[in-house]
Every structure is written in C-alpha cells, then in structure tokens.
C-alpha cells in the first residue's frame, strides 16, 4: 500500500485516493499535422518500461483532483519523490548511484515504501497450486 505525498494538498494520503496515469514528461508533438506515422505512433504508444527508476504521472482523483509527478522504483516500489506539474525530477536513473551513497533523497513527503521488501525473496517466489 502506497502512502503518497500530494504536493498540492501538502499531506500524505492513502493510495486509493490516487490513480496512476502512466509515464510523465511526454511532450505532445508541436506540429501534429506534420508528424510522420513513426513520430505520431511513438508519441501515442511507445513508453519507457524500465526496471528501476521511473517518472510517472498520478492524479489525486479523490482529493484535489490535480495531476502531479512521482519518481518511483518499479522493482522496490519505493517512492523517491513527488513533485508538481512543470517541475523536473531531482532523482533520475543517471543519478541513482549518487543517491545510494548519500542515502535516500527526499521530497517534502519523505520517502515511502510498500509492505513487502524485495530482498525477502520468498515473497517473490510463491507459486500457485
């Protein structure tokens, strides 16, 4: 369960108030009429799908209903920062090594985790009957 800091409401709220809306910082082509099929398809459908640090768009749908960005690790599920629209992330994949040396870099809400930890491999190895 995420406990997410909304940069507009200035407080942490439960995951169920929020809704993820995919990858952040996707720029709409300036001149859509003159895009090639390649460019337009890439804009519409092709996404980063990293194992690791990912910048994503969320909406506080049962709160202030505003969109904001989250930097999150897709393997540990650790939320590294939340920041309002129009801002750039301070934690990026390129700087992840630096972050580890310095400890967890936090936005206003601090860092947050979900229940299960990845190092507990047993949780990840469960198979059904």
């Amino acid at each position, binding site marked *: *369960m*995420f406990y997410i800091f909304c940069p507009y409401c200035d407080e942490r709220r439960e*995951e*169920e108030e929020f*809704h*993820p809306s*995919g990858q952040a910082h996707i720029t709409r082509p300036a001149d859509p009429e003159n895009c090639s*099929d*390649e460019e*337009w*398809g*890439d804009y*519409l*459908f*092709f*996404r980063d*799908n*990293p*194992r690791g640090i*990912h910048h*994503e768009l969320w909406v506080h749908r049962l709160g202030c209903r505003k969109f904001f960005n989250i930097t*999150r690790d*897709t*393997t*540990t*599920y650790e939320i590294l920062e939340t920041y309002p629209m129009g801002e750039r992330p301070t934690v990026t994949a390129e700087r992840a090594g630096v972050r580890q040396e310095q400890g967890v870099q936090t936005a206003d809400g601090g860092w947050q985790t*979900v*229940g*299960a930890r*990845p190092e507990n491999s047993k*949780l*990840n190895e*469960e*198979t*059904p*009957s």
Partner: protein
Amino acid sequence: MERYSGFGLFKHALSHHENWQRHWRNPTPKKRYDVIIVGGGGHGLATAWYLAKEFGITNVAVIEKGWLGGGNTARNTTIVRSNYLWDEAAQLYNHSLDLWKGLSQDLNYNVMFSQRGVLNLAHTLQDMRDVQRRVNANRLNGIDSEVVTPERIKEIEPALDTSKRARYPIMGASWQQSAGVARHDAVAWGFARGADSLGVDLLQNTEVTGFRIRDGKVLGVHTNRGDIEANTVGCVAAGNSGVLANMAGLKLPLESHPLQALVSEPLKPILNTVTMSNHVHGYCSQSDKGDLVIGAGIDGYLGYGQRGSFPTVEHTLQAIVEMFPMFSRVRMNRQWGGIVDTCPDACPILSKTKVKGLYFNCGWGTGGFKATPGSGHVFAASLAKGEMHPIAAPFSIDRFNTGALIDEHGAAGVAH
C-alpha cells in the same frame, strides 16, 4: 524419452515408483545453435517444441534466467477460451484452442485440459449489446459462442446469484462451451519434456545479459554462462520483454504491470464452469484440487515486483462476493502476482524487429496462458521460415505506427 502409459504406471509400481526418468536433461550450453529462444515459460517452450516437431529444427536452445515455467505460466488463472471480437484475434486464439484439444496426446503428458465452458456476464444494457455483438462476431468466425439468459445461467452455474436483488443484477452472458481450464504447470513441463526429447537444450539459471548485433543482424546473445551464437533469436519474455528490447536498442509499446490472483482453501466441488465479469471485475473457477481460483485486476502503475497491491485484492473479493454471495466466508489461502506486459490495444506482438533475425513474441498482457500452444506454433513457423505466419502477421509491431490496431479492449471480454 520414456512414454507414459497405463502399462508404464503398472510397471513402475513394481519398483515402488523409484525409477522414473528425469523429465529433461540439464545440458551445458553449446557454442552455437540454429535458434535461440529467450524465455523458458509456456510460450517459449511451446515454440521450441513446435520448432523441433513440426519444422525439424532441433538445434535449439531455450534460455531461462530462473527455472522453467516459473513466471506467469505458474501464476495465471489457467483459463482457456477464444471468444475474441476481432477476426485476427479470434483466429489466433481459436488456432490455439484447436491445438489444446489434442495437446495431451501430442505431448504424451496430461495437461488436464477440461472444456467446462466460460460465462462472460453482462450486468448492464451496454454489456448485453457488447455480448451480442461479440457472440455474433464469434459465430461468423466459427467459434461456438451463444447468448444465454439468466435462467440458463442459473442452470449452468447454480452458485451464481442471478436474482434481481443483486447490486448489479445479471442480465445475460455469453457462453462458450468449448472453453475451459488446463493445468498450468503440466503445460510447461509437457512442452519442456517433449522439446528436450527431440534434442532441444533447456538452459536454466542462464540469464541473457545482452545481444550480439552487427550490421543490423543478430549474431547471438551474451549470457552469464558465456556467449552463445545463433542467427535467429526469439524473445518470449513476457513482463521482461521491455528490458530485453532495451538491450537490443529497441523500444516496445509495452507496460509491465503486476497482475495478481489468489486461491481459497479447498472446497468440495461447487463451480461447474469459469465465470468472468467485466462489470464487477472478477473471475473465478474451481481447480481439480478444490480451491477457488480467483483472478484480479492489474495494478495500474508499472511494477516488476511479483506481488500485487492490497486494494486490488479487496476489490476483487468484493466482486466475487457480489457474484457468489455464498463465498463470503470462504478463507483465502494464498495470493501472488505475475508481471504482465500489456499492449495499448490488448493484443500481443508477434513480430520481426529492425534487427534482422531478432523476433519478439510478447505483449500477451493479462491473457497469454490460453494462447500457449497457438502462440508457440505460429511463432515457431515464423522463426523456421523467416516470414511471419499468416495468423501472426497482423500482430506486427508496425501496427502501432500504421494505425492498424486490433482493439480488443473491453469488447473481447478481456477482464482488465
């Protein structure tokens, strides 16, 4: 390979079942293969088996970073059906269903395929219209689909609440009698045993760390056990396809999400069929062991942790109790997640890439298990001939740039 039979069972009983052969070898990687399959799940193993059996290509390696069938093959809800809306998808899944029917005999391995039927419930007028449209499309494609009334639904599945008292009363359903369930592990093991017996090397605990690509042609893969050469490489890595594509410098229109499922404590036989509902968003069947196998939605965010979130569990069980009020006190035994690679149009990608000799079979999203034999068969045909099989051709990655999407979202009874 030792053939399984009733006589064999009797023979081994005489030696207290202590002399059964191993299912497959554990070979050392060779320097060079004709074809490398990356990913030893159901689809990858099926591809290897059909390559060897139908196309006579036996110098094949299946490279798996964990153990065989340990990913989504071990984590799905085992539903097999083919009632998809669009012609391309219907043909693909129906091709698979045809192969399922004779699979246990083909593999000499009991995959416990049970055609107990699937109900896709409709709870609103729009649901009913969608069901009617899909059933009509199915029948034009030769799929045994029909629209059934609540009275008929009650006969098929008495445990369902078909009364008017329900929060979302059931107005009807589509019914595909030839659909059903299969034993997921047996599918992986059967294909693995079959492929191994025909000479395919199954390399477990071998992780692909990169591709050898020169002049736009694939020459092999780098692994943690050394380099392996091949001029044809097929990637069948489900949730990790995007990671592999990245290594080859490609981008895919995929997002990896955790999809979870859960099973209850074992109960006496109570469910006759598979019941799915888009509207209340849950699906349920009963395994031969007696546990209710319950499917849930995906977590909306990207994730590679093979577990699901608690809110999803809660929503799913709300849906199940809505459909089957008598299950309200059944205790859940276990819960797990698998990483599904979802495509924007909810259809898979079976495609060549910009790199010559490098093929991808991915994007099956939340419904890949049912396609295991069909996917393996058409992908093997494509790898063997160097040209995409006619059934696979519409699923090219190019469709995301040309616009020829096969939009199975919602319309197909896809429950997500």
